[in-house]
C-alpha cells in the first residue's frame, strides 16, 4: 500500500528544528535547480519553485494546489514571490501541517489528509507536486506489477480536480540503474527501509506510461546533477551542525534499526550523493497539460 501516515511521519517528524539545521531557510526537502544565476542552496531552491510555477502557468489570480506540500516552502514561494492570492496544500504529516500554520502565509489553506480522501471544494487552475509520488508505491507493489496502475490512478484522479486546459508542475525522484555490489545495495535498502519506509521511487518510463491517459507531457527536464549538488549541500550542513544536533538530543535518538538519528542521516545523505553521482537515482521535472 501507499506510505501510511505513520511511515510518512518517520521520514519527516523527527523534529522540524532538526531539519531546519541542514535544509535551506524555507525547508525545501526536494531537489533544487542550480544554474549560473542560482548557485547557493537558497537561490537554487527558489529557482526550483520558479520552474514548477512556470510549468503550472501560475498567475496571481490562479487557485493553486500543492499536493504533498511538505513544510510549505513552495506555498511560501507562491504567495510571497508569485503573489498568488489563494494556494492550497495537502500533506499527510501533522508536524509539517503545524509548521505551515505557524508560518501564517496569507491566502494559504492546508489539508492534513491523504490525496485519495481529498475532495476539492472548487476546481484548480494549476497543480504542483514535488516528489510526493515517491510515496505512492511500495516495493512489494512494484514487485507485483502494480506500479503503473497506481501512478495512473493518481494522475487520473488529480486530473478531475482542475479546470480545462490546466497545467501541472510535477517533480519526482527517479530510480535508474541498480548497483550490483552488496555494500551499495545495502545502503540503498537502508534508505528505503529506515528513512522512507513504504515508499519507492518510480522509473521515468513508468511515469510516462501512467500520466498519458489524462495529461500531455509538454516539457521534461531531468535534474540528476542538481539533486547530487542538493544532497551534497545538505550533508555538508548536517556535518557542520553536528554539535548542535547532538546537544539537542535529536542526534542521539534511536531509530527503528537500532542506530541513532545522526548515524542514519549521515549514512542516508552520503548514499544519496553516491546515488545521483552513479545514476542509481535521478530526478525529473515535467510540465503536464490536461488532455481536455
Amino acid at each position, binding site marked *: 500500500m501507499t506510505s501510511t501516515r505513520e511511515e510518512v511521519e518517520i521520514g519527516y517528524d523527527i523534529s522540524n528544528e532538526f531539519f531546519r539545521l541542514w535544509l535551506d531557510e524555507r525547508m525545501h526537502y526536494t531537489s533544487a535547480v542550480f544554474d549560473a544565476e542560482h548557485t547557493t542552496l537558497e537561490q537554487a531552491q527558489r529557482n526550483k519553485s520558479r520552474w514548477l510555477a512556470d510549468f503550472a502557468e501560475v498567475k496571481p489570480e490562479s487557485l493553486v494546489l500543492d499536493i504533498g506540500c511538505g513544510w510549505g516552502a513552495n506555498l511560501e514561494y507562491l504567495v510571497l514571490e508569485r503573489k498568488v492570492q489563494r494556494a492550497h496544500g495537502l500533506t499527510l504529516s501533522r508536524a509539517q501541517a503545524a509548521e505551515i500554520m505557524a508560518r501564517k502565509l496569507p491566502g494559504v489553506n492546508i489539508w492534513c489528509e491523504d490525496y485519495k480522501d481529498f475532495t476539492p471544494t472548487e476546481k484548480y487552475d494549476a497543480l504542483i507536486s514535488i516528489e510526493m509520488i515517491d510515496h505512492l508505491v511500495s516495493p512489494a507493489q512494484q*514487485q507485483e*506489477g502494480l506500479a503503473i496502475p497506481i501512478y495512473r490512478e493518481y494522475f487520473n484522479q488529480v486530473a478531475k480536480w482542475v479546470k480545462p486546459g490546466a497545467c501541472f508542475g510535477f517533480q519526482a525522484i527517479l530510480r535508474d540503474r*541498480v548497483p*550490483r555490489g*552488496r555494500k551499495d*545495495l545495502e545502503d540503498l535498502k537502508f534508505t528505503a527501509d529506515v528513512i522512507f519506509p513504504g515508499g519507492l521511487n518510480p*522509473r521515468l*518510463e513508468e511515469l510516462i506510461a501512467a500520466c498519458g491517459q489524462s495529461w500531455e507531457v509538454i516539457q521534461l527536464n531531468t535534474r540528476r546533477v542538481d539533486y547530487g549538488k542538493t544532497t551534497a549541500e545538505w550533508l555538508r550542513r548536517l556535518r557542520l551542525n553536528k554539535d548542535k544536533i547532538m546537544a539537542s538530543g535529536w542526534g542521539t535518538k534511536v531509530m527503528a534499526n537500532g542506530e541513532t538519528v545522526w548515524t542514519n542521516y549521515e549514512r542516508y545523505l552520503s548514499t544519496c550523493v553516491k546515488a545521483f553521482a552513479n545514476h542509481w537515482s535521478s530526478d525529473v521535472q515535467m510540465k503536464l497539460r490536461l488532455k481536455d
Partner: protein
Amino acid sequence: MAQVDIIHLFKQAALEVNGKKLDQLSKDTVISKLGLDSVAVMELVSYFEEKLNIRMPDEDLAKVQTLGDLGGLVKRLVPPGTEVSW
C-alpha cells in the same frame, strides 16, 4: 549448442550467493515470494550476469516477477543459438 537451465542456475545462485537451498521452483515461481530481500535478489541477478556474460537492463529487470520472466529476459540477451530451458 550452449544450454542454460534457468531453474538449475537459480538454485545454484541462491545456494552459492545467499546460502539458501530452494526447492520446488517452476517457471511460475514468483521471485518476491521466495523470502529473499532486494539485496539478495540483486546478488542473484549479478550471479546470472557473471555466469552468462550478459548485462540485464534495469528497465527490463523492473518488470521481472517470475522465474519465467527471468528466463525470457535471459533468452533475449544470450548469444543466438543458446538454448534456454526451465
